[in-house]
């Protein structure tokens, strides 16, 4: 086992811990913060299942973004759907016996990686060219895109240009799963790719990537339109009723 293998092992254990604990704490915070009032953006579904379906459409199809801006929607779908396929393709690195579905998704994972980078570049171009979006973009917005492009591009590079020993990479990650650190190939493209992924995992709970849990907790999307039928009362607000005259 090389020093490099150890460093990356520590990096990935730390990144995973930060991602999981950080996200869990954030989700707990969202879940335990009360919603004092019913504020679904109307018209809103009248039933719980309807509201769940609304959130599902938002997550799966970016429904509101579709209404809003077709270009951003196209690039956002390219990026997110591409990323999803690429991630599925990568599941094989964590399975000794690869599931059939993961085997089937392999070729699409490559297209996914391309789509992801294309979508990111489209979003980035808008951020630079469109003056309204340029105005609202800060350094962190550009850096986040740079990081994601780096991940996608370094991954595609390993597929098409400078290959790495993926058998060894797989052995390394299977090893990490059982706390048995194997040898990691030292190809620069791989190290860049994995390093960038670890950085992404670390910044996830502390950045705008919180939109991922956020969309599920957005009251304007997940609340049911039933305010007249059911009294919705936050615990902190309830004691106020004791002060009223009637």
């Amino acid at each position, binding site marked *: 086992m090389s020093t490099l293998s150890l460093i990356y092992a520590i990096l990935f254990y730390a990144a995973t811990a930060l991602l999981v604990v950080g996200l869990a704490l954030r989700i707990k*915070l*969202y879940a335990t*913060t*009360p*919603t*004092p*009032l*019913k*504020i679904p*953006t*109307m*018209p*809103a*579904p009248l039933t719980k299942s*309807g509201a769940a379906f609304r959130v599902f459409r*938002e997550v799966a199809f*970016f429904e*509101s*973004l579709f209404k*809003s*801006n077709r270009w*951003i929607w196209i690039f*956002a779908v390219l990026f997110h759907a591409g990323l999803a396929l690429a991630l599925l393709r990568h599941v094989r690195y964590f399975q000794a016996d690869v599931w059939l579905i993961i085997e089937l998704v392999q070729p699409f994972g490559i297209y996914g990686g391309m789509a992801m980078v294309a979508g990111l570049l489209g*979003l980035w171009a*808008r*951020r630079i060219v469109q*003056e*309204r*979006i340029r*105005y*609202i*973009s*800060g*350094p*962190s*917005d550009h*850096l986040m895109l740079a990081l994601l492009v780096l991940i996608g591009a370094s991954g595609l590079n390993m597929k098409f240009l400078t290959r790495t020993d993926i058998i060894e990479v797989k052995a390394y990650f299977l090893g990490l799963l059982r706390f048995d650190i194997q040898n990691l190939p030292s190809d620069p493209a791989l190290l860049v790719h994995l390093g960038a992924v670890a950085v992404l995992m670390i910044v996830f709970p*502390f*950045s*705008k990537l*919180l*939109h991922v849990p*956020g*969309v599920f907790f*957005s*009251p*304007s*999307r997940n609340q049911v*339109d039933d*305010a*007249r*039928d059911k*009294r*919705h009362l*936050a615990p*902190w*607000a309830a004691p106020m009723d004791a002060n*009223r*005259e*009637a």
Partner: protein
Amino acid sequence: MADQKFQTPAFREYRDNPAIQIGAMSHSQPFIAKPEHNEPLGFPGELVENWEQKAVEKLGDLLDKNRALRVYLDSCVKCGACTDKCHYFLGTGDPKNMPVARQDLLRSLYRRHFTLAGKIFPGLVGAKDMDKEMLDDWYKYFHQCSQCRRCSVFCPYGIDTAEISMAAREIMDHIGVGQKYSNEILAKVHKIGNNLGLPKPALADTLEGLEEDVEEDTGVAVKFPLDVHGADVLLVTPSADFFAEPHVDGLIGYGKVFHQAGINWTVSSYASEAANFAMFIGSYEQMHKVANRIRKAALDLGVKRIVFGECGHAWRVAYSFLNTLAGPWDFLDPKYPVPQHILEVTNGLIKSGGIKLDAQANDDKVLTFHDSCNVARGSRMGDVEGGQFIIPREVIKASVNKFVEMDPQTTCEKTFCCGGGGGLLTDDLMELRVKGALPRMEALKEVIDNHGVTHMAAICAICKSQFTKVMPYYGFSMDMVVSIHQLVSDAIQLGAKEEL
């Protein structure tokens, strides 16, 4: 208009988005509340010592109380989808009127004090400390948001800038920087019972006058009762309905509907205001206090139902919040939703034959309809999703033969605010109000030019006041604005039912 110190925006031929003009509206701000406006609401009279820290503490308090605020401040990815959705941006080109930029005014403080990234790398994530410049920007630009929620329709995470601007205004109130218009009005409600400060004798006088007018006009003795114990229905309506054209014609319409349907109703002098301005300043406590005047009035008068008159923000608070703030309503008749909108009542009566309308009475008019933002995106009517769009149109179509829709990009859930909502209906913000009305005025012009529209109905006291004031700037007559119940009033067949 000759006396104006600003240019009314020109109609845009192709609805292009304006180029951004940094600082275009940085001179616009409403009058700051004086101690006598703040103190009755329990807010400090003027800017407190240590306000920078107090603001951060209040933000922390709100973050713990309101999930929406926390999620919305975290979730924005700066995708830009909202940047061309706000009427104030479209009318002014000021980039701080883009919803995301407006949110960022608060988000920068949030990130500095409540996020790890903002504590370690403030410059990277746009985190800033509270200072005079930030407070000035807050006061200016959180009073250039009418809390209409249009941006929340288009945001992929449903981020509602209204929630953010309410929080910012609440923070400012807590450090002694209130807005005169809203706070002065709220003090009046606590003292007298309505926004206009009309005391009981003035109300009684007005309602008596209406009875005389209607009898003279129609020969029918339609009553406009005040503080009648044991009435079935408590009508809660914006106080503008007691006061000014075109609002009062709507009130006459409600009275005729109740009369003809044989519904025993009353207005309360104690709760003589539907609009709850506490929503504008984001204060749950104030909203609770104002809303519970209605509960007290309902209990004191022993009514069985509560019906709200035409008012947009009032109806959002009534429909979405009243049960929370002033419920439970177990002492009212369970057969009816609490509260009901007057249009739900009227539409139900039209359908059941309880009242009859002769649409020919309005044949001199070609109508269009402005969906009021808070009704459209903050409430519902009836029992189906989107009923708030269906019911007003059904009542209009029953009252008028000629009805034309405006551009669908400007109606229903995509409707534009009139430009005066959310506590901005004050003359010290006239330039903002005129410019913010641009998208609605453009859509209106289109149906006037192409379809000969003569009147625009609205169901909100603020819309009606705002339009009568700003339409002349765009070359339209203020008389074009009508209440839906003014149309009902003109079309309703009064008299014994068998004669009809």
